[in-house]
């Protein structure tokens, strides 16, 4: 009985998702316009696309799941670039998974802090806050 109660809405939900996402391209979240004309940002983002592929694949999957099930309904609301979920994915490419989780929670704290807007560079009304800015600790301890 309980199973039937949850199964029907779940099937409907999945069908809606699948039919809506037939091309498997997200409705929103194309960020190229933000980085096209900004070499600083481009180089930062390129430098972050490093190794650690296994971890980043797992986090990519998690974030993809989050984007399809929550973010697309909730909308493109994050006031930062990269958004918090992208921050986490990019962070796993630079740091270990544990560090990335810590940095992600730290980012959520900054996101919640409505008084911190003055200290960020603004691009298209979003605050530029890449994970590479928060990776000194690991870099310095590796040297």
């Amino acid at each position, binding site marked *: 009985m309980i199973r039937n109660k949850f199964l029907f809405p779940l099937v409907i939900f999945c069908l809606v998702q699948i039919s809506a996402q037939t091309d498997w391209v997200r409705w929103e979240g194309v960020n190229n316009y933000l980085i096209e004309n900004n070499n600083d940002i481009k180089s930062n983002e390129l430098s972050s696309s490093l190794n650690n592929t296994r971890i980043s694949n797992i986090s990519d999957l998690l974030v993809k799941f989050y984007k399809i099930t929550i973010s697309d309904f909730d909308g493109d609301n994050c006031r930062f670039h990269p958004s918090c979920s992208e921050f986490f994915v990019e962070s796993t490419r630079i740091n270990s998974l544990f560090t990335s989780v*810590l*940095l992600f*929670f*730290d980012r959520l*704290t900054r996101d919640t*802090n409505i008084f*911190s807007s003055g200290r960020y560079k603004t691009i298209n009304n979003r605050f530029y806050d890449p994970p590479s800015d928060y990776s*000194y*600790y690991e870099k*310095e301890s590796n040297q």
Partner: protein
Amino acid sequence: MFKIIYCVICSFIILYAQNNSYHSPENIRLFADYLFCQNDYLRAIEEYKRLENSTASDTLIFKIGYSYLQIKQHNYANKYFDMIERSSSLKSLAVNYNSLNFFLIKDFSSLKNNYRLNSDSDLNDSKKLLLVSSILNENIFPSDEQIFLFDDSDRLFVNDLIIKKKYPDYKSPTVAGILSVIPGAGKVYTKNYTDGLTSFLLTGLFTFLAYDNFRNSHHFRGYIFSFAATGFYLGNIYGSIISAYRYNRNYDEKIITETYDYLKQKNYFIKKVNFCE
């Protein structure tokens, strides 16, 4: 008859006009100097280069080097400043501007070499730049005697810079990490007051929610809120450490920016040349 006179006059005018060589070296130089004085350095270089083979002089080579420096083509500027001969009266000025060239591209070993190799010239200006770059980059501080090379106002600035570098207002990442055992205190220590407050509130809120749910036997929700509370708490500790590193880096960057701004205002201690009066 009138037509013949008219034709002769026209022919004379045309002949006279054609005799006046607009592309003579003297005219090219005058035009190049005009462009130079209008700060149109790129075109001035083109014109000066047309004279390079025929009427090259130290002044002309210096002007080309100076123009390259102004348009930030530092390698070319270096090449032209080096071309000026030792016997020239512009040599010491060229060496000083070459020092500035190296200072601007932050090639401090070449700056030192440039000073060492040309020690026979009058290089007080270069020496001042060298002293400032040593303070900035190597934390090597000048002696009292060397500080007296600077003017009174510059001396105040240099002393201030020395104090900032000797006793930097750094924040210790270890202290920040230890303080953040109390959520947010580490961030307050690194002067991120609002981040500290947010961190305290978020950790407190999720801890309360976890406690409240466990107390009312909502274990699943209790675990979720516990995970969030732990994440925010550990994130706050790690974030505080990173925040201290960021604070220190910003402090260093601020000193460098202030120094470069001051030096720019003072033409990097180098005498201004005025070829346009």
